[in-house]
């Protein structure tokens, strides 16, 4: 924080008022839609419909949550999403670190340039929708969790972040390790990785959020409803005329609306909760990645 003179000038005061007002407006405008969802998830359907602006839950109840947690398809899809994370993240990280290490390494390797170009080229050019689909089909991973995990498992952008972070590590460290007879694998694990925890936090967050919030691939690669991830079920509910409340009969259901909001909360909260744990490293890590040296 900058130090300031104790007494502010009038000009400064006006400026402060303007800045604070803008920020308060922004914060409220950003916060309200989220608050709305939260409040609506605890209210009854008739209350949601009757209110102009929802400020506080009306006819407070947790019935919508109870019903939503009982929804077999939604709960299964939640599990599927967790599964995608569990399988996908390790693969992401391994591929990214390996690609990053190769690009950052200073060892003289004959095929280095071609391989680096091979990696970078995929950033600019890809098969496109239909060829990618045909490929997934040909590989025999259609309608399996691998179809959600493998395509896009390596983000070249993230590999670049990784590479930049590795380059920032003083070479003298590598050198002394090599002199001690350490292999590249050992250097990577014993020296490089421990020094780039912030970057790993960034990578985990990037890949994790992308996995958790993805829906498009599942919409074309998965045809068994029990294998769909959570976002696809949400999409069906929010945008495609399906109703969670159907599970309690085709008749009028007072909690149908609240259940939609409860489902949003249930599926969004886990990923939001991850951030505070990684936040410590994050500001540092993102800097390394984005402003490349």
């Amino acid at each position: 924080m900058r130090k300031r003179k104790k007494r502010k000038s009038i000009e400064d005061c006006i400026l402060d008022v303007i800045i604070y007002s803008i920020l308060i407006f922004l914060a409220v405008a950003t916060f309200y839609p989220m608050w709305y969802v939260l409040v609506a998830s605890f209210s009854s359907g008739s209350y949601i419909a009757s209110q102009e602006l929802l400020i506080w839950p009306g006819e407070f109840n947790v019935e919508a949550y109870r019903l939503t947690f009982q929804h077999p398809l939604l709960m299964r899809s939640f599990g599927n999403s967790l599964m995608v994370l569990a399988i996908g993240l390790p693969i992401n990280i391994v591929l990214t670190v390996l690609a990053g290490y190769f690009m950052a390494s200073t060892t003289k390797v004959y095929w280095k340039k071609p391989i680096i170009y091979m990696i970078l080229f995929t950033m600019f050019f890809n098969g496109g929708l239909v060829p990618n689909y045909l490929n997934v089909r040909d590989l025999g991973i259609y309608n399996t969790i691998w179809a959600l995990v493998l395509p896009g498992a390596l983000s070249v952008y993230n590999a670049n972040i990784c590479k930049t972070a590795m380059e920032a590590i003083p070479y003298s460290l590598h050198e002394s390790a090599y002199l001690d007879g350490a292999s590249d694998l050992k250097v990577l694990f014993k020296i490089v990785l421990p020094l780039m925890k912030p970057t790993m936090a960034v990578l985990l967050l990037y890949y994790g959020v992308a996995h958790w919030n993805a829906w498009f691939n599942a919409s074309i690669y998965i045809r068994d409803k029990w294998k769909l991830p959570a976002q696809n079920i949400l999409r069906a509910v929010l945008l495609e005329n399906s109703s969670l409340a159907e599970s309690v009969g085709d008749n009028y259901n007072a909690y149908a609306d609240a259940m939609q909001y409860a489902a949003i909360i249930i599926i969004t909260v886990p990923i939001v909760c991850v951030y505070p744990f990684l936040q410590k490293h994050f500001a540092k890590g993102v800097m390394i990645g984005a402003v490349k040296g």
Partner: protein
Amino acid sequence: MNVCTLQFHNITTNSCEEGVTNNMKRKLLNKILSMALVGTMVMGMAACGKQPVASTEGTETNVAGTEVSTEVATEVVEEELTYPLKDAVKLSMWTYNQPPVSSVYADWTESPYHIGLQENTGIELEWIYPVAGANVDEAYNLMLTDDELPHMITNDTSLADALLLAKDGMIYDLTDYLPKYAPDYWEYLNSDPELLRSVKADDGHIYGVYGHTEGDYNGTYIGPVIRQDWLEECGLEMPVTLEDWEKVLVAFKEKYGATFGFNKKRYNMGIASGTNAQATIFSYAGIPGWYVDETGKVQFGQMDEEWKKSIEVLHKWYEMGLIDQDSFTMDDKALRAKALANEVGVSITALSQLTNWIADAEAQGTGADWVGMEYPRLAEGVATSRIQSGTRTTATVTMVTTRCSEEELITALKWLNYGFTEEGRMYCNFGKEGDTYYLDAEGKPQWTEKITSDPDGTIVAAKKYSGTHSGTVATVQAADLVKLINAKTSADAVYKWIDNTDNSKYVLPPLALTEEETITYSDKFDSISARCAEMAMKYIIGEESLDNFDAFLEELRKMGIEECQAIQQAAYDRYLAK
């Protein structure tokens, strides 16, 4: 894209009308009796080996499977078709329909109808449905590119597209197999020349087993509905002409703040495909899509002056605030909520939705009295020219893919035949006798307690135990079903929609295109259809001015509408000559 949903509902919502007049009842009974009779005869003939083996010319086409036909001919002749079948073959079926009663059952393995079907036919069948929220066209297209096709595919594939699939070696030509392995279906097709030619592709072959209905009543399941109680409160008569409609809409708007609301997907802005004429509010003239005019010429509705006029009226109403703006973005769920909240006074909707609305009003005690009404007329005494309707052969077809071995193909056909046996027809329409239905004194099916007192309501209950409204199996949807599953008011609505119209004059039969025609046609017409849907909505909300209508027509010509028209005309001429 919308067409799919509609066609599914076709079979879904209306099942059959219960013959109200004695005449109709008799007809139904006769039909069932004669079916049964003929069915036995055929089987007998088949057993004696006297059944003429269908044309062997089929072998010349390079369609997979045809060559097999001759060798098989002899061995099966002795086999009598009795259900449950003894074939130890497991099959899979992809269907574009929605899974059975997803509100109650996690999937089809829990559905009593599907379980019963398995018991009755003796065939273990795995059902594959598009996943929740998936676009059905997309799911179908993706499924077709899969290396491992299901054994059977049920979809609203046109005759032309089926021909193409067969040419590509993806599905079997069934022509030679049907008489032997699906004798009941074959007999049904032969009971009416119209039926037989409606299922034949351009090369005269049959590539699938179709879903059929008993008649017009089943084909119409979308139409206008209105709040009768409000009409009475306002002291207004049931509107007949467009002017009447406007008066009513204005009155509703002023008194209740209610509008004319619909779900765009129901009120099709695009174009009908196949046999399914789509709902159009302005049926007095402007028919969207292909129709056949008085002189036997195939015409494209959007090119007519009348279509422009109908859109003009809608635009005027939109400007006056009589049409709910959300009509273009909301789904059935949202429309239902609006109907319940008294925000909509007039609508155009599906039969099952009308039944839902009536049930909602009762459950909530809103006093709303929804009834069906006639499509608007241009003037008093002028009959409505076109409404949403369907033919006896629906667009839903089950095709047998070349994944099947010969044995599996035969089993599949025997399985498909089940829906056309007397027993199968009753089961698919009404479930199990004595359990879900009984025959009353007049021999008409009636629901038992089990259905009528089901807590989920009659529609849902019926879907649990019977199948034609999920379009799950090729069969003949009985005219009695619609009336049985829907509230009386909604069942009656269908008469209001179909009576006193000239609809049948204009309906185009299912047309069979050649391979080349299909390719040219789909290249051009997909875009045309999308364009028409888009422009119709733009005209209505005033995003685009109708003054530029000629430019739109010019655009359609540039996109190749005339070529498409020529293709349709040629196909229609061939149909008449068939």
